[in-house]
Each structure stands twice: as C-alpha cells, then as structure tokens.
C-alpha cells in the first residue's frame, strides 16, 4: 500500500487526508455527515410542505391559493444564496426577539436546525410544484373508486393518491434531493460546518487547496452516485404497476 502511494507520489496526500490527526479526513467526514443530515431533514421538510402546498394549490380557497402562489414564486425567483442569508438572519433574529419578549434570554440556535429550516423552506417551494403535477397525473378514477368504497380522505391520500403519484413524482424528487445535498454547501456562508466549510478550513490551514477540494468533490460525487442507485430502486418500485415503455417490441 505504502509502496503504491510512494510510487504515485501520493504519500503527502494520504497523510493530509488521513482520518487520524494531523490528517484532516475526519473533519471532512464530519462535514459530510452534517451536510447529509441537513439535506435529509430539509428534503423531508420540503416533502411535507410540498404535499400541503400541492393540495392547497389544487383544492384550497382563493386566499390560500394566492398565498401559495406568492410563496412558490418568490422562493423560486430569488437566488438561493440570498434566500439563505435572509431566512437565516431574519429567522434567528425573529426567534431571539420572540424569546426575549417571552422572558427567556438569547437562545442558541443549532446550526443543523437552522440549516434544515432554511433549506426546507426552499425545497418546499419546488416540491409543491413537483407534487402538484404528480397529483394531477393520478387518474381521477382511482381516487373516485376510493371514495366510492367509503375510504375517508386521509386514508385515500395514504393508500391511493400518494402511492399512485410516486410514479410521476420520483424523477423530480430525485433531482430535488440532489439539489438539497449541494445546497447544503451554501450554508457555509452562515458559518455552518458542513462539508464545504470544513474543506475550506482544511485547505487554508494546509495550503493544499487542490487536494482537499478534489476530495470534497469526490465525496459529493459519491453521494450523487449512491442517491442515483437508491432513487432508481424507488422509481422501479413506484412504477411496478405500469408496463415498461421499452417492452413490447420495436
């Protein structure tokens, strides 16, 4: 092993990336874990917002529909970096004001929670549109059949609408998830220790920019590749009832 590294001239690189100190590998992995945690949380929160948003847009009253239109338009119009700065500083400021008003002192807001909250709101806007399209693609007859057999609204949602819309929503949601993983990098601007900020710190302390950013790029790529495998399985499962377009000759 060492011989290979030496002949490749990578001994120094290996030392820099080593998991034990003085290597910075552990920091990078910790950053990755933080990034994934935020991405997962934000994606989940985005799905919940998206489901409510989609239903609100499709079936809500005029006021709710207008509010949701403003939400999705504004969020999708403003650059994400700006949104993150606004939501992060405004959000933490508001919470602190509220805490002081209610007689508590300053509250320390955990970076993970703030990150999930901020990115979740961004993800929710995109998820609303993805799920709205997917709900509309579900054949109305299937929902009607559920109603005709006495299924209450929530049971219909859980047993019929959501499983049926998965077939249409999975590709869009897979995209959204990948965006979530990469958007976590933007949280570096508010000083959150996710993968990109950890990389930057390691790089500037050691002056090995190339090594560390290449390593970080590799980690992001791995996340993408693994996600691809997972979503391919989900999509296959979600489309299990539909004939493949490739089957049937020609």
């Amino acid at each position: 092993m060492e011989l290979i590294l030496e002949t490749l001239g990578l001994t120094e690189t290996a030392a820099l990336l080593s998991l034990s100190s003085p290597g910075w590998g552990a920091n990078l992995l910790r950053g990755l874990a933080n990034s994934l945690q935020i991405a997962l949380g934000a994606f989940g929160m985005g799905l919940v917002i998206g489901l409510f948003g989609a239903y609100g847009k499709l079936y809500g009253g005029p006021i709710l529909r207008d509010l949701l239109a403003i939400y999705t338009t504004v969020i999708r119009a403003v650059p994400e970096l700006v949104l993150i700065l606004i939501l992060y500083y405004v959000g933490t400021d508001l919470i602190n004001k509220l805490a002081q008003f209610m007689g508590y002192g300053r509250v320390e807001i955990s970076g993970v929670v703030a990150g999930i909250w901020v990115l979740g709101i961004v993800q929710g806007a995109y998820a609303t549109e993805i799920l709205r399209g997917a709900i509309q693609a579900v054949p109305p007859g299937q929902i009607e059949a559920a109603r005709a057999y006495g299924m209450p609204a929530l049971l219909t949602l859980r047993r019929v609408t959501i499983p049926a819309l998965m077939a249409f929503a999975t590709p869009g949601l897979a995209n959204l998830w990948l965006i979530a993983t990469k958007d976590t990098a933007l949280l570096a601007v508010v000083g959150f220790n996710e993968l990109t900020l950890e990389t930057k710190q390691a790089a500037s302390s050691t002056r090995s920019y190339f090594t560390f950013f290449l390593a970080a790029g590799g980690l992001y790529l791995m996340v993408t590749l693994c996600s691809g495998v997972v979503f391919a399985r989900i999509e296959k499962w979600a489309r299990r009832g539909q004939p493949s377009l490739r089957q049937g000759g020609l």
Partner: protein
Amino acid sequence: MPTAASADPDPAATATPGTRPPSAAQGQSGQDAVRIEGLHKSFGTLEVLKGVSLTAKQGDVVAIIGGSGSGKSTMLRCINFLETPSAGKIVIDGEEIEMRADGSPANRRQIERIRTRLAMVFQSFNLWTHRTLLENVIEVPIHVLKVPRAEAIAQARTLLQRVGLANKEDSFPAFLSGGQQQRAAIARALAVDPSVMLFDEPTSALDPELVGEVLTVIRDLAAEGRTMLLVTHEMRFAREVADHVVYLYQGQIEEQGPPAEVFGNPKSDRLRQFLQSVS
C-alpha cells in the same frame, strides 16, 4: 339525532348497519334496498335530473336505459354521493342519508359507512394500478372494514376464482385485458359484501369479444339474488336479467316496468324511437 330538512325522521335510521328499522310509514319499506325520491341534480344552470323516484327491493335487478346525456350516470353517482344531489331523498337499506338543505351530505361518517354497502363498478374499471389484483380486492376489506388480513386474503382468492382470475392474483391491472380488469373490479366490489351493486355501463369500454365474459359474471350475480342497479346499453342483456327496467329521458323517468312490457310493448313514442335506434 335531528335529520336536517327531511320529512320523515326515522329514529331507527342511525342503528347499526345491516339492521333494517321497522318503518311504520310504508309497510314494505323494510325490503327496499334503495329508495330514491324526487332526486334533482343540476350542474350550474344545467338541470340533469329533474325529480327521479325509483325503488329497488332486495334482490331486484333494475336496468337503467336511456340516451347519451339522459342522466343515467349522474343518477347512479348521486346514490353514493359521488355527486352531490341538489334535492331529493335517498334511502339505503331503510337508512336515510342525512342531507343539508342544499343537498350536501350532513354526516360524512354516515356517507362513508353507507358507501361500503354500495359497491360501484365503473365503465373504466378504475382499479388501483399500483396494486396487484389481490391487493385491489383486499384493500377495502382490510383498511375500511377492518377485516383481519388473512381472512380478507382467503375471501379475495375465492372471489378472484369465482370471476375466473385465480391465476392472475399477482398481476397488475395494466397487464390484463379490459375484460379481466372489469372482472377483477367486480371481485373488488363483491369483497365488501354489498347490499347493492351499482354498475355504470360495465361493458361499454370493452372490445366486443370481451363483453360476454363480463356479462356472464353479472348474470350469475343476478341469479344468486344480488340487488343491483345496472346502467347499460346492452338491451338484450337488460331484457334477460332485469326484473325492472327504467327508461330515462332528459333527466326524467319516461317509462318503467317489467322488461317484457318495456321492451315488448313500449308505450311512449320516445322509448319506441330509442329502442329502434339502439337495436
């Protein structure tokens, strides 16, 4: 429980499902599986049903015929409140559906409960495409009627066998012919052991050579005494299986009676014309 805007509040109507209240008003009402009185339905300004009254007794097969747009589907869909009637009265198994003055259901729970006793078979099957045939059939028994899973599966297998789909239980609907899908939909309907089956043109979406297999299944159900309301364009079939035939014309019952009368000796000119046009 006060029933809104209903002329005949029936205290026993809220009793457990299946028990039919001994009604004093009409002697035979205990045997009525479905009773519709003065049903009106408008879509905006278009009045589609203009006061339809109809009774189906237990075990009756009522065929509903009429031209396109006469309101047959709308009437059937009003019975289980897939459409909200504008006015009228609907009584299922002696239990009157509580309606507000505008016709909307006053008691969602009651509607959901009554719907499990009315099984609908749709023109376009409407099977759940993400579930296998077996899963389609056990879905409502397990999740709505709370039947134990093993029991539901055993019953579903019997039903699928009965409609000739025993070897297809793991297939998804999209991989089957229209006739097979409709037979599966009938199995799904039977799985709730309905008091009344509602068929809305069950064979209209089928290729001609597949119509027969579905009609055979329906014929068997009629013979075993299932109560059913059957909207159909298959006049010969209606004549053969129905106990009672209703001819709907522009939202009103133009003529009704036993099939021999309605088909053999139509009194109204419109019905006569209609029968000529479809034969």
